[in-house]
């Protein structure tokens, strides 16, 4: 029930933010090469999924918070930081240079993840 509600809300948010149709977003999970939201990290149950994401240089990664509590996404070595994301809010960052980018939620620091840029 909750997850259906969440995905509907996310879809609505995306439609507002990017003018994408709900159908386009629905297909988005499969990921078409030109899709700007191809690389996503879900925040659910106090964890980042996938915990490790590998992307090509120049990729834009989007984090979406599905929890009922706010989270954020903060680079461990301060390369990037999101504002606080309330339920269904999202944050994107473009990774230009190859490398491993560790990040965590500075509100709930047990939550950690990394993006590997090739």
């Amino acid at each position: 029930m909750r997850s259906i509600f969440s995905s509907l809300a996310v879809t609505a948010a995306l439609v507002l933010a990017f003018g994408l149709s709900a159908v386009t977003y629905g297909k988005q999970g499969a990921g078409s090469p030109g899709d700007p939201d191809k690389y996503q990290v879900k925040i659910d149950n106090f964890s980042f999924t996938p915990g490790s994401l590998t992307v090509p240089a120049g990729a834009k990664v989007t984090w979406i918070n599905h929890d009922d509590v706010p989270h954020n996404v903060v680079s461990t070595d301060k390369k990037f930081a999101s504002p606080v994301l309330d339920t269904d809010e999202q944050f994107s960052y473009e990774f230009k240079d190859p490398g491993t980018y560790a990040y965590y939620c500075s509100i709930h620091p047990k939550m950690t993840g990394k993006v590997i840029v090739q």
Partner: protein
Amino acid sequence: MRKFIGPGSSDDGIDRRGFLKCMAWAGTGVFCIIQGGVLKSYSLSQMAQHGVDAAKGDLSFVQISDSHIGFSKPANTDVTATLQEAVAKINALPTPPAFALHTGDLTHLSKPEEFDTLDQVLKSLKTSKVFYVPGEHDVLNDNGKQYLERYGKGTQGEGWFSFDQKGVHFIGLVNVLNLKAGGLGTLGREQLEWLESDVKRLKTSTPIVVFAHIPLWAVYPEWGWGTDDSEQALSYLKRFGSVTVLNGHIHQTMQKVEGNVTFHTAMSTAFPQPQPGTAPSPGPLKVPAEKLRSLLGVTHVNFLGGKHTLAIVDSALQS
């Protein structure tokens, strides 16, 4: 049905089985007294019916925690109303508390209007003063700048402070800032140094009450329910005969006695959280509407001067 629990074999004089019996009542409200190393417990309803002399202590105060003003998800769509009910419960106490402690997560998203609503509700609290420590929800986006402007007057560093009331030394600590990746709550070097020097001048007979948002004991580190450097803080308090540690954050009552230190966590006034390990993660727990108020509440603490007696009562909004 008063239960007197005799001393066991351990040095602290508290019989473990007896203590657990006391613990088992915590969910519905329990009244525990540690007097001369002997722990006694009473149920809240017994207290209400017959009255307990010990409840009229030399100093009494209340702890409010995790009001999360601004939260509106299904677990509780009206957290302002339940905070108001908590205030009404406190205002109905036979002896007005000397002051109130709010152990953090005043707001859900650190929004100015959320702080305003909290202030508005707590204005009707019949007590002379409210002392605050921040929760992680109160320092979002600005590292606690707004929190300090509103509640940090007369405090040190990021908002820590101490004060004395009727011979009891109170210490408010901040463990929700500068958190490190993979870690738990953090006090930090500067605060620890301050704490060490703050208690240096005190006699070992001085009762100490420490309060902070995240538990200062390892309740459940897997969920972040603990503080990385709490052991160092507690090492400065080892020489004292009576130390009480009051925390919030986990939205449920839990108690532990270790030597002279009693650890206690309070209920939230906003929403319950699952018991450690009983869900995939912490977070707001949706319960049937008729059950919600039995899982929300406040804590009432009494000190009996001279006898080193402490009484902690957890009181739900509805039993």
